């Protein structure tokens, strides 16, 4: 980057506390190779303090399933004590009322629960976990009882996109103040399952119209946030608000990434919080410098007036689809490879999901209910 460009202060930190998760969602954005060597709570506490000093305001406690960490309350308290706004991103599985009360006491500010569909059979099939739907309903009630604001994250793909209105109704019924219509993005496990997850253009157009009508009908009751799904867009998303510009991601093992999928780009050198301070990593790590600013761009991005709006789109997607991480994200209509996106969107196949499993050798699509969780 040029000397004239300031290094922005990050606003958000995605803390992937663990890659462990009881669910098997086939669209999971976790990398296919999962971290096993997890940071302890004390190290997370240090990272949160460094993050606040760096300017970070909000921490998103995520995973995997963050509740798979028995010390989640301790970690939440550490984030709160560092002055950060704490947002829990959870599947709800593993959070009993007693455990959730401890998080509320620790200063939790906001909860985001994902839902897979508006009714249990389909939802549990997509999650690869019997009973997940019921647990989400129970946790939503607890969150509302504690008067903590609730966002429902409705993850949309071919099997449920026609149920978007029912999913918004469910979010309202659960007491959410906000719902995200989150179309699957094709990274990690979702990339493996792309042909099974991809909606048709007709489905996407119906869903976009439905969301507009829902916004009008429910104005003042619930905030509906939605974006056009990648493969049907004309312009790319400004991925993570620009590489190394607004946010950072710490993996369970402590690697610091500009975005959660960054490890899919070969040749990037990531630094770890086990060896360096977050401020040093943010400013100097080769991975953060690789695509910061606009100097790395090629044409058509380099001379495009939108280059500081969408930053050339997503580097991980550019690499996944073109083999060149410096290429224009092919979602962009100005990309010479744009036709590829349309062709891939047409590759839809009715095939079983490859469920996300930590232990590939135990992969099994017919899961039984897990043993009762201990609080």
């Amino acid at each position: 980057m040029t000397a004239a460009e300031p290094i922005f202060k990050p606003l958000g930190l995605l803390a992937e506390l663990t890659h462990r998760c009881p669910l098997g969602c086939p669209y999971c954005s976790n990398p296919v190779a999962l971290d096993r060597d997890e940071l302890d709570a004390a190290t997370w506490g240090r990272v949160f303090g460094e993050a606040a000093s760096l300017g970070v305001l909000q921490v998103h406690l995520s995973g995997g399933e963050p509740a798979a960490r028995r010390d989640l309350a301790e970690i939440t308290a550490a984030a709160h004590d560092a002055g950060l706004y704490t947002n829990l991103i959870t599947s709800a599985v593993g959070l009993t009322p007693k455990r959730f009360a401890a998080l509320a006491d620790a200063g939790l500010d906001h909860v985001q629960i994902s839902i897979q569909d508006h009714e249990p059979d389909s939802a549990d099939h997509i999650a690869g976990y019997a009973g997940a739907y019921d647990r989400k309903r129970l946790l939503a009630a607890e969150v509302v009882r504690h008067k903590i604001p609730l966002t429902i994250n409705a993850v949309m793909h071919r099997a449920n996109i026609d149920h978007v209105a029912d999913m918004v109704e469910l979010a309202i019924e659960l007491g959410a103040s906000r719902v995200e219509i989150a179309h699957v993005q094709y990274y990690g496990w979702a990339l493996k399952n792309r042909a099974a997850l991809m909606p048709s253009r007709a489905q996407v157009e119906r869903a976009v119209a439905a969301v507009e009508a829902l916004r009008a009908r429910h104005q003042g009751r619930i905030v509906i946030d939605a974006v056009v799904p990648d493969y049907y867009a004309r312009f790319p998303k400004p991925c993570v608000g620009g590489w190394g510009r607004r946010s950072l991601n710490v993996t369970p093992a402590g690697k610091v990434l500009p975005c959660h999928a960054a490890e899919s780009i070969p040749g990037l050198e990531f630094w770890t919080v086990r060896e360096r301070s977050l401020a040093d990593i943010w400013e100097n790590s080769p991975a953060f410098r690789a695509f910061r600013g606009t100097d790395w761009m090629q044409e058509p991005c380099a001379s495009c007036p939108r280059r500081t709006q969408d930053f050339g789109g997503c580097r991980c997607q550019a690499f996944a689809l073109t083999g060149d991480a410096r290429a224009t994200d092919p979602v962009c209509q100005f990309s010479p490879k744009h036709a590829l996106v349309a062709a891939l969107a047409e590759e839809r196949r009715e095939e079983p999901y490859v469920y996300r499993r930590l232990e590939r050798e135990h992969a099994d699509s017919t899961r039984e209910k897990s043993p009762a969780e201990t609080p």
Partner: protein
Amino acid sequence: MADSTQAAPIAADAKPRLPRGVRLVHNEAQGGLVLLAPERVFKPDPIAVEILKRCTGEATLDAIVEDLAKTYSAPRERILADVSALLRSLADKKLLEL
């Protein structure tokens, strides 16, 4: 504040407060006080900060306006209009309870 006359008036004995999940915090690196909400961050201007600091859930609108009018030696009517407009706009975004 021309639009403040169009919004529903706020009761003089209302006790505005930030709901759970909305917090005013100090961050040195971001240059002072910021208002944090679900998936959102706001940088309040100095006047908004003075108003927000007084939204404790204990002080009434009346008392907040009185205090600000005294602190800034400003006409009470103007303060009331400014405070009402800000509180109404925050309440519409679910950032404030009246």
